[in-house]
């Protein structure tokens, strides 16, 4: 605060500001920062979720790190992240560019696109479970063998379905971000390109995509960090199954902690989840030169 300059009354007025931020800070610290520190602490304890908490040193860490379930959960989490990113990003860019155009029907389509984002993951998962039922679902009813497979009963298919449903839910959101990004590209760039005789496809790759660079970073950051939090959808849709085929880290944490009453190992998983999230955010920031947060601060 010593950096403050100006009149004395200005300084006095300014000093109120931290108090305005205090309520948000208190709640955030109490229910996000303290738990964040707490989860590190709990990873060195044994707790069944009800009884007393005991210090147990590295026991939980050793148990988790030597468990073949961990590399598997990490791999599944990474695959869900990577594949759903690879599916969602091109589709979202394409749809976002399309929606940025000005025909009226595009706006109407945009309204429908957005509906899935309104629904709870639980509702979506439950509807898809019924829809994909091999005996009574859509495929069986239409008598299409191709569509009436045991979608959620076979590991590869179940993984594909998870990625599909995730994309179904979140592509609209990301296309909206891209729509905003495209609309901010100066029109003069396209006019210049047109004068130079660049075609539509050329324009897309030479102007639209490079101009969307920071939008891509923002969207990807949200996508990647968000994919770490896919819990409800997968929990309701597959419960991590068949076997452990869709058991992502967040689900692994819940199952160890709240189903198997092993809060210590579950906390270890949570710590790993935090570390993965931070690492990814930093990596993306490096890649893009700035991240979703920093981009907002420029010119502040």
């Amino acid at each position: 605060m010593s950096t403050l300059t100006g009149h004395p009354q200005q300084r006095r007025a300014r000093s109120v500001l931290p108090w305005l931020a205090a309520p948000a800070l208190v709640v955030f610290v109490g229910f996000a920062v303290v738990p964040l520190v707490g989860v590190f602490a709990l990873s060195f304890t044994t707790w069944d979720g009800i009884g007393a908490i005991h210090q147990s040193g590295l026991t939980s860490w050793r148990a988790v790190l030597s468990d073949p379930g961990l590399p598997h959960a990490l791999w599944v989490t990474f695959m869900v992240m990577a594949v759903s990113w690879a599916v969602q990003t091109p589709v979202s860019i394409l749809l976002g560019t399309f929606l940025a155009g000005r025909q009226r029907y595009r706006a109407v389509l945009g309204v429908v696109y957005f509906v899935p984002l309104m629904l709870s993951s639980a509702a979506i998962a439950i509807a898809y479970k019924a829809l994909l039922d091999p005996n009574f679902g859509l495929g069986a009813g239409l008598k299409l063998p191709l569509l009436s497979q045991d979608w959620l009963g076979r590991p590869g298919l179940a993984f594909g379905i998870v990625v599909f449903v995730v994309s179904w839910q979140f592509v609209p959101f990301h296309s909206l971000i891209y729509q905003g990004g495209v609309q901010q590209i100066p029109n003069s760039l396209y006019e210049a390109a047109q004068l130079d005789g660049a075609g539509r496809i050329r324009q897309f790759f030479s102007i639209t995509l490079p101009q969307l660079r920071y939008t891509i970073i923002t969207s990807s950051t949200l996508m990647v960090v968000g994919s770490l939090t896919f819990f409800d959808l997968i929990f309701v849709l597959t419960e991590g199954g068949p076997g452990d085929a869709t058991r992502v880290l967040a689900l692994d944490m819940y199952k160890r902690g709240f189903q198997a009453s092993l809060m210590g190992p579950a906390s270890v998983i949570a710590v790993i989840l935090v570390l993965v999230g931070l690492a990814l955010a930093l990596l993306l920031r490096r890649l893009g030169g700035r991240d979703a947060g920093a981009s907002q601060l420029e010119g502040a």
Partner: protein
Amino acid sequence: MTATLPEARRPHKTARRERQRRSPQPTRRRNWAGGLAGWLWLVVVAVPLYWTLITSLKAQSRYYTSNPLVPSGDPTLDNYRLVIESDFLRYFLNSVVVTAGAVVPAVVFSFMAAYAIVRGWRMRLLRAMNGLFLMGLAIPLQATVIPVYLIIIKLQLYDTLLALILPSIAFAIPLSVLVLANFIRDVPKELFDSMRVDGATEWTTLWRLAAPLTRPAILTVTIFNALTIWNGFLLPLVLTQSPERRTLPLALWTFQGQYGVNVPAVLAAVVLTTLPVLVLYAFGRRQLLSGLTAGFSR
């Protein structure tokens, strides 16, 4: 002859230029790839929604025999009656209490914090606070649910609605502060200065100047948070136990466990839990979409 020129057909040249600035694609040429993808995606999105709706109106006996994409000839509301009779209203009210109870403080607190961060950007303390909130964006807050559970038990709030409200506020803060700060930053500095010259306190400036000028952003953040909290599943799953405390998504899940065989009834429950949100969407759509676009893509 001039009539054949597209420009001449448009009466308001300035309006056109305005639109053109916002949307770079010339209207005259069609975006075939985008158009195809657009209609395909419409099918991908609409078919499951349509199927859910028409199936929820079928009698259970009809469900197994009829074509799944053809609406029932004699639609029935029996499924909906079954869902509503299984305490739907209570779960609905729980969701309302949790959502309203969390969103109002979350937005008010976030707005105050965002204002402080923008106005006091030169204070190291506030910059550090901002950094802390930004960190919250990068960390999957789900990872903190075990300590949250412990804290809620220690506070003797387990299995209460307040147990859902408190962490929901915390989870809502990072993004809300980010979006609101973005908008407050756009308020011309001169306005703040003239308020100060008039002797207004920060508190007055906050509510009389910043809040009205950033109303669209506040509304957007409110809708967005309401949506997230309304649809929340993990916190109710972990922090409540008794059926009386269930919120809609959790109730939906348990209902599915109970009535899993009665698919039309389960889907009626899906539609019912979704309906309030869709009504909200119908009213707040423009606000939500434009706000989100502005909030994320700059």
